[in-house]
């Protein structure tokens, strides 16, 4: 299948139902049911479910651009998480529940936990669905929430890859927005993007956005049971980029960037949350370091090729 035949309609769907106003309404604890229903009706929630279980049977690498779009448009519901959860549940022969599913992999805030009907924990082979009983984080307009008393640490690698893909989509959008703003905003009689100091910053932003995308793709290449090293490289790289991309974008935007009415914050708040979710860059550096240190005689170039 030509993936573009899926990507374009998915992008149009999201643009229609996840307008900035609709996103803000969901974040302000409004009714998310119509938005969710549109995703459910689209059939995309079963993109990763194998074909004999009624899904589209896409690999995670195939579906990577779809998941990145969810980040790109700052979709406020766990659409990517539900795609992964439904595929794992279907593969395990479990029943697929209706409604949004968030994935809990640690004791920190669960991405989209506050807007989920169910929480997935357990392991990729033995996933467990429980009714979402979450506690708000108290962070302004946060869709994330705590989900106490579940253990999903075995889901951390696949969830980390999912998060890396979301980061890569959001980072790419932030790059586009920031470049456009630098070309529009005029100071000292010319667009600020003509200033070398600003250009140098935007170049670093672009490098990090591309690095995040490549890192996420490394994670997605080994599927719904990613190799540990691939997941580590993916989430380390994406998280490392997330912080820098958000910081440069806000620096270039100036005060308007931190205002609620301007859309940049919809993306940068997610970048920060996703950076911390499912293990930060430091966590995954530790995981990869342990694997690397176990083969000290191996050249680093050989290790990363084999990883």
């Amino acid at each position: 299948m030509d993936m573009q035949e899926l990507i374009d309609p998915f992008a149009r769907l999201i643009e229609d139902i996840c307008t900035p106003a609709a996103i803000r309404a969901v974040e302000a604890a409004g009714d998310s049911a119509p938005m969710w229903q549109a995703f459910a009706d689209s059939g995309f929630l079963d993109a990763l479910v194998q074909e004999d279980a009624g899904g589209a049977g896409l690999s995670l690498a195939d579906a990577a651009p779809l998941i990145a779009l969810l980040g790109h448009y700052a979709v406020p519901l766990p659409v990517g998480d539900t795609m992964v959860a439904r595929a794992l549940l279907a593969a395990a022969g479990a029943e697929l529940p209706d409604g949004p599913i968030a994935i809990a992999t640690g004791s920190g805030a669960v991405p989209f936990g506050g807007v989920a009907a169910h929480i997935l924990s357990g392991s990729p082979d033995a996933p467990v669905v429980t009714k979402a009983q979450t506690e708000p984080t108290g962070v302004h307009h946060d869709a994330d929430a705590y989900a106490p008393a579940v253990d999903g640490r075995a889901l951390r690698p696949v969830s980390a890859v999912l998060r890396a893909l979301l980061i890569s989509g959001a980072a790419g959008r932030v790059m586009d927005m920031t470049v456009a703003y630098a070309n529009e905003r005029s100071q000292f009689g010319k667009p600020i993007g003509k200033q070398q100091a600003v250009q140098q910053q935007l170049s670093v932003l672009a490098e990090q956005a591309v690095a995040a995308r490549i890192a996420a793709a490394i994670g997605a290449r080994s599927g719904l049971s990613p190799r540990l090293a691939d997941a580590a490289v993916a989430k380390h790289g994406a998280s490392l980029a997330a912080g820098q991309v958000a910081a440069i974008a806000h620096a270039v935007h100036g005060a308007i960037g931190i205002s609620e009415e301007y859309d940049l914050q919809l993306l940068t708040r997610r970048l920060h949350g996703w950076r911390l979710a499912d293990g930060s860059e430091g966590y995954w550096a530790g995981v990869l370091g342990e694997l690397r240190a176990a083969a000290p005689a191996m050249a680093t170039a050989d290790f990363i090729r084999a990883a």
Partner: protein
Amino acid sequence: MFETLTLSALPPEDEALRPALRALIAEAIAELPTNRRARSWQGFDASFSRKLGQAGYLGLSLPKEYGGVGRGPFTRFVVVEELLSAGAPVAGHWIADRQSGPLIRHYGTEEQRQFYLPRISKGEALFCIGMSEPGSGSDLASVRSRADRQEDGSWLLNGQKIWTTNAMHSDYMIALVRTSGTSGDRQSGLSQLIVDLKLPGITIRPIVDLTGDAHFAEVFFDNVRLAPDALIGEEGQGWKQVTAELAFERSGPERIYSSVVLIDAWVRHLDAVGRKDSATLRLVGSLTAQLAVLREMSLAVTARLVAGESPVVEASLMKDLGTGFEQAVPQLIGDDLASHPDEAVDAELYRTLLYVTHIAPSFSLRGGTREILRGLIARGLGLR
């Protein structure tokens, strides 16, 4: 933006080159201490370059009819990765293999191809590139060295190049010089000439760097008479040709692996002293993870070369990110080792660390400075 950069797999037939190449490399580096291997692509050994040529590891992307191997940039990626990972002395053939050969193939006349390419592929014609001058560094378009066409079609070359890597070991220089107009004409009026460095009127003086090595030189041209066929490509198109050449120069594995010999030596040290605390493992993992992403990015740019494109902006992005990593490595490893003052550090590891620390500024100077590259990326983003 930059969406053409995607994960790309190396063809299995290229991967298959590794074992035989490794045997050849192992022999060449057997006697080299770690700090010499850390010279990376600045280590010079003409006999090793010839051996690589004889064994068919040079001229990989050049057609067989010109003595090349008839493969492509992916093949070169594999070979270069093996050479750099091991710290093999590759400086002799480096520039000819990486950019002079492809340049001559692309812009050269049939006679020039027949004359130079077979010897480049054998590691017998060593090249340097004459770009910088005393008054022209990042502002390359301001070069003043000048070649004037004589009535008989020959060229009279006068001027000076500086910071020319490996000039004293090279047979030829491909020089960017002015062939018409004045330096005020900037990019127009520049041409590339192949200069036989044995000709009368040429003086080459090696320049010693802060590590004690002399890998670059200044080159003086005093009424050097060049044959009519010294011109490579079109007269006046030198700038365009140089720009295309820089895409080859900026994207390869040499922009991510310059500090990798140090990383490997440090990992072995950690194992030897049994240090496995979480802060140490995080640093090991962070460097490994960054290198894994950079390698895929470099491979992605290589795939654009394979597709016949000239990915100038992508290569700049790759080089800036890669050299930033290469420069961070000695800082971080230095801090790690010196954070454990009661842990014995082998003198060879220390020499390697300090060599890489001292030479690291060059990583983001050679082949275009960080600031110039970021300017190119900004142009690619539509900011200028």
